[in-house]
């Protein structure tokens, strides 16, 4: 037996872009996910989350750049049962029974876990002979999970996984996900809820307008949010010099008003009051939502393009 411990990245995107006609859905994403990571893919609607996930699944081909999953082309990884995804809606045939749906799916893979075991683990043994059409939304969602876990995937992609779950369901769900991550399964879940990302993910990848705008642990992302805004009246402000102050990560000018976003607001305030004619200083702290908005909002993007 060889004892090589080099592990291949669960997902590797390099310079990936996707255009639909004149629409730039993804504008260049580099991303590497390690095995066993639980990663939140966070961003507002239309940020490019779904397009990026589709490229990881091989459902669409990048306009430029490459996407590999566990060192393989996405379609190759899927053919080996290494990747699964759970969508929020659809994806089920109404006139099949729950068991038939799982049997059908299982028969398509070279190796799967036993159908009965998967039904049992998903808690749908009791409704195995029920037609899908007669299942509640929650039962259908459990069926989708059962199908996704059949092939014991190394990478699981989830789209808004806990929508519609109560607090208890959410907790059970995430503890199950974490158990599998310990065994090496990578989980990437798309969400537009910052709180869920912060609570359950090891790592948050914040995406906006087709780009990764932040990537780090929950606390690192929160540190971005921990800064304060310093607002002052300063006619004819020299934005270049203001931006050069240590710790300043954003400068906005609205007429005579300047708003500076900074981790060290004291240093900014000291500078403004001693080195410039700034007056009417206001210092406010930014919440998580503010950070999210400032990272994903149009102001930030305009800054990128200039």
């Amino acid at each position, binding site marked *: 037996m060889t004892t090589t411990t080099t*592990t291949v990245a669960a997902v590797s995107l390099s310079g990936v872009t996707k255009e639909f006609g004149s629409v730039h859905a993804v504008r260049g994403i580099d991303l590497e996910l390690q095995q066993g990571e639980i990663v939140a893919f966070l961003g507002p609607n239309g940020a490019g989350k779904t397009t990026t996930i589709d490229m990881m699944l091989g459902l669409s081909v990048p306009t430029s750049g490459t996407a590999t999953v566990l060192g393989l082309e996405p379609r190759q990884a899927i053919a080996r049962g290494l990747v*699964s995804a759970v969508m929020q809606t659809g994806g089920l*045939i109404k006139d099949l029974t729950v068991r038939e749906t799982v049997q059908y*799916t299982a028969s398509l893979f*070279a190796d799967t876990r036993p159908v009965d075991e998967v039904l049992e683990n998903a808690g749908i043994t009791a409704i195995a002979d029920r037609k899908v059409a007669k299942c509640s939304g929650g039962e259908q969602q459990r069926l989708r999970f059962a199908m996704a876990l059949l092939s014991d995937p190394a990478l699981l992609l989830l789209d808004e996984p806990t929508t519609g779950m109560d607090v208890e369901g959410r907790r059970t769900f995430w503890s199950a996900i974490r158990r599998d991550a310990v065994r090496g399964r990578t989980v990437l879940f798309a969400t537009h809820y910052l709180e869920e990302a912060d609570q359950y993910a090891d790592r948050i990848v914040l995406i906006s307008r087709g780009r990764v705008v932040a990537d780090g642990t929950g606390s690192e992302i929160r540190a971005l949010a921990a800064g304060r805004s310093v607002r002052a009246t300063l006619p004819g402000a020299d934005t270049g010099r203001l931006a050069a102050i240590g710790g300043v990560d954003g400068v906005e000018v609205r007429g005579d008003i300047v708003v500076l976003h900074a981790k060290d607001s004291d240093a900014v305030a000291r500078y403004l009051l001693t080195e410039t004619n700034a007056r009417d200083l206001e210092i406010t702290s930014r919440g998580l939502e503010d950070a999210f908005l400032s990272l994903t909002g149009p102001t930030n993007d305009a800054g990128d393009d200039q």
Partner: protein
Amino acid sequence: MTTTPAIDPAMRRVPPYGGFNRTVLAIELKRMLRNRRTIFFTLVFPAALFFSFGGSSGWDDEAGHGNVAAYIMVSMALYGAALTAASTGAMVAMERAMGWSRQLRLTPLKPVVYISIKALVALFMGAIAVTVVNIAGVVQGKPDMPVGIWVACAALGVLCTFVFAALGVFVGYLVPGENAMQILGPGLAVLAFLGNVFIPIDDHTSLIWHIAQWTPMFGVAEITRAPLTGELPWYAVVNALGWLAIFVTGAAWRMSKDTARV
């Protein structure tokens, strides 16, 4: 307990035959056979049509190597098979609309294998429809033709269902959802009338005959009845192959369009 054993992609296998297997085929057939609408189109409707047409006056007249009742039986079997195959084809589009095709794209099943499975199911259902009408003919006792011709006509009828399976897929994409069958049902009835399936058009100089020759059911009907009538006009073969090409191209074109946004 060990921690974080990496998953080795090299240990995973790709299924043989692009995911084709008997379990899927069996489930697909079971599904068709418990669908009340399919059962009606496949088992009840064509046989009922045969009983109402096949016993009409002049059934005993000579027609090629058999009699008129045999001619009508072969035609009705073809019509039943076409209807069944078209409705099976239309299901492909419905499954796409429900997101099932996208779900299948997350499995090793290859799209071409999926379509092949559907084609096999359509063929099987077409064969059932043909068999039922033929049994109806035996039970009624009026159709008369040599056994070899009887079998040849039935086999050709089953084979010709491919044209309508492709038509079903094509129409299913153009008119998504349950509406596809509402168009295919009456549409195929009109085509059957025009295509010389229900009522033979005897006046070969009439306008309706000239139109009929160009319609999709004309060619396959002539081919299916060829063993019985003993004649196979070249334009009937061209008609059948032409429409098969058109429907397959149309279905493939709509399908590739659709794949772009799954």
